[in-house]
């Protein structure tokens, strides 16, 4: 039997896949070997010059990468803890359950850039309402102008914005759990804490890993919050990899070098996330 005609049906899908996924990656790789910038407006070939520059003469990229790692891991851990707590809360039969479910999702439904502008106004140290309130207690943190506090501010905004996503996934997971293990635990007289540790948490592990990985992927692209809130400052205190790549590519118009940074970053992220997924699986899922 001749099944060649099946390729005709596959072709449109493959074409779209190549167009929107494969081509941009191949183009980025090719661009990363060029010196395209504002004064060399062409896709020339300069070999691995950009890669040599990245690995030998660009500590700022690596600093921004480690800063990003800190910010994304911290925010995702906090989002997981808070999101799981909220999901557990509305999983039970409590009053106004539906109201809380919708309310907890609101931050995720807002536009990140707009919300960050609002947060920036809140945290404005001389005109914002947060320090106005704290001023009554004689406190006035430097939310955006101190290198350490600025990181915390970025974390607060990110956690506020994206915890609902974690909450949504984990609540869906909780609602899909089988009832039998919980009945068995209840018959055995297990306390709420033991039920959580030995039943809920292990059953939720696969979903938790998925949610954490999805959020890590998203958090590793953090850009709009940093852009609006601090512009990477003070100094370089909140500069992340994606913001640094944006500066090199679209502010300084070093397109070739920005492609090198992007591709290297993509490779690092694929490797890191694969390792993280394996480690999480080993830690959280007991055979």
């Amino acid at each position, binding site marked *: 039997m001749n099944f060649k005609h099946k390729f005709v049906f596959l072709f449109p899908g493959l074409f779209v896949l190549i167009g929107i996924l494969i081509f941009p990656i191949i183009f980025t790789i090719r661009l990363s070997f060029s010196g395209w*910038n*504002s*004064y060399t*407006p*062409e896709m020339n070939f300069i070999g691995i010059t950009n890669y040599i520059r990245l690995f030998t*003469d660009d500590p*700022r990229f690596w600093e921004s990468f480690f800063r990003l790692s800190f910010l994304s891991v911290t925010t995702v851990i906090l989002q997981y803890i808070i999101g799981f707590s909220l999901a557990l809360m509305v999983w039970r039969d409590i009053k106004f359950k539906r109201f809380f479910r919708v309310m907890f999702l609101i931050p995720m439904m807002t536009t990140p850039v707009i919300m960050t502008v609002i947060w920036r106004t809140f945290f*404005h*140290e*001389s*005109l*914002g309402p947060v*320090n106005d309130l704290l001023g009554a207690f004689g406190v*006035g943190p*430097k*939310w*955006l*102008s101190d*290198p350490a506090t600025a990181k915390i501010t970025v974390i607060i905004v990110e956690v506020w914005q994206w915890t609902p996503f974690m909450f949504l996934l984990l609540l869906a997971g909780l609602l899909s759990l089988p009832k039998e293990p919980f009945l068995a635990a209840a018959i055995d007289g297990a306390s709420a804490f033991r039920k959580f540790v030995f039943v809920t948490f292990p059953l939720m592990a696969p979903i938790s890993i998925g949610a954490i990985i999805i959020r890590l992927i998203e958090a590793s692209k953090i850009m709009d919050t940093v852009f609006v809130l*601090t*512009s*990477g*400052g*003070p*100094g*370089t*205190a909140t500069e992340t990899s994606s913001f640094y790549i944006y*500066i090199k590519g*679209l*502010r*300084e*118009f*070093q397109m070739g070098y920005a492609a090198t940074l992007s591709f290297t970053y993509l490779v690092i992220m694929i490797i890191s996330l694969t390792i993280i997924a394996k480690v999480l699986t080993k830690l959280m899922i007991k055979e």
Partner: protein
Amino acid sequence: MKTIKTCVTALISALLVFSPVAYADKWSDQFPHIKATGDIPGECSYESMSKKDYSGKTLKINTHAVPVMGEPTALHAEQFAKLTGAKVDVTHTPAGDLYAKAMVPFQAGQAPYDIVFGFSNFINDWKRYLEPVPKKYTEMRQMKDVTKSHIGVASWDGVMYQFPVDGDRHYLKYRKDVIDNPKYQKKYKADTGKELRVPRTWKEYGEIASYFNGWDWDGDGEPEYGSAEVMKKDDLMYAAFFSRSVAYSKNPRTPGGFFFDLDTMKPLINNPGFVEALTDWVEATKYVPPGGINFGLGDEIGSFGGGQTLFSFSWDDALIAAMQDDSPIKNKVAAAPLPGADRVWNRMTNRWENQYNQAPYIVWGWAVGVANKSKVKEMAFDYLCFFANDANHQADLAIGRFGVNPFKKSDFDPNIYIDTMGWDPEIAKSYTDTLLEMEEKSKNRVFPLRVPGVFEFTSAVATGTSKALAGQLSPQEALDEVAKEWEAILNRVGKDNVKAAYAVGVAMEDNKL
């Protein structure tokens, strides 16, 4: 008979005398934006444009987001469309993306926009894709009114690529009601032993700003602060740093480069003059409002314009905001030249010269050009000429949020601000005298860096100086890092390429162009 003759003569005289008013009213009735002046005759006036017919043609413009420059672009586009029958499509783009949004299609050989707005320091990268302004426009009366400085800013080696629509420079803005207040002058003298006056040097600026920092000196129940400055990383902060540097590093006795030594192309950014300026700037973090280290231009305008600080220095916007009718500090502020320094670095002798030095910084400015691949170049230049005609320009000047600032010699007449904007005559005079001195009289001016890879150079300055402001590095370490980065950029771009372009800017600074 004599009575009739007298009446006829009076009637004719009245018609002649009042005809410009009648003529002006005809257009200001249709276009209320120019109601203060009516149409002003000229090559690109409302009357002249109404005689053009661009029906069936489309003009595409990429401009800044509203309101700054974006709002006047859209307003004048609508007026131009009504007058000429053209269709005008206006795209608004955030400031940070203006360069790339035009540059990517330019480099790909396309012209999705007939007119592109940007900043004057884009000129070196953009000029090969822009149509030089035709002689018809460069020789018209409207253009002859543009100051020599801004003809220079819009031109490259004598060829004009950018049509002047705005003029910018940094200068000092201060609270006149405090500095000129006898009560505060007496108190300051008693407390410090010094005179309270408009600061002549950056050190004096720092002393006065520190004194007036953190207490309620205007009696509004809120504390006020010393100075509002653009310190947020990458948000034009490099321009603020250069404003503080010119007094220490632009030595009129050492021509041949402010940013680099033109002969050797050695970066001068870490010489003691720049380090002194950065040291002052780090000190300034103590007298800005809380969070002032994170102030962008909008914050600076809001802070000084809203009456929060004693001083500010940057473009006109903060002063215009303070002088708008709804401002609580209208007619309580004034303009003055940027402070100077009691000593200036001599890079040839490698020694400080202990004498007073001051240098104006003619920085940036909105710029606009016509793509050389545009198919409607004539219409595009007519639009730009109409945008900057005298009636539109005077009306635009009065609206702070438009971001249109003086660049014509006629703008330096204080009566414009007194009659049409209700400014106090003394303040209007301080404003026009300050601008005129910088634009037309000073021989020690500094212009923005306009070389290939300019954004790499300025980005390195922003990164280095912001590290110093945040306390991550000392001023010397920060500027050494910038100098090292500048060397790397020079090697990438090519020293000769940068040198050739930089020579054009140096010729302007050395008063040879």
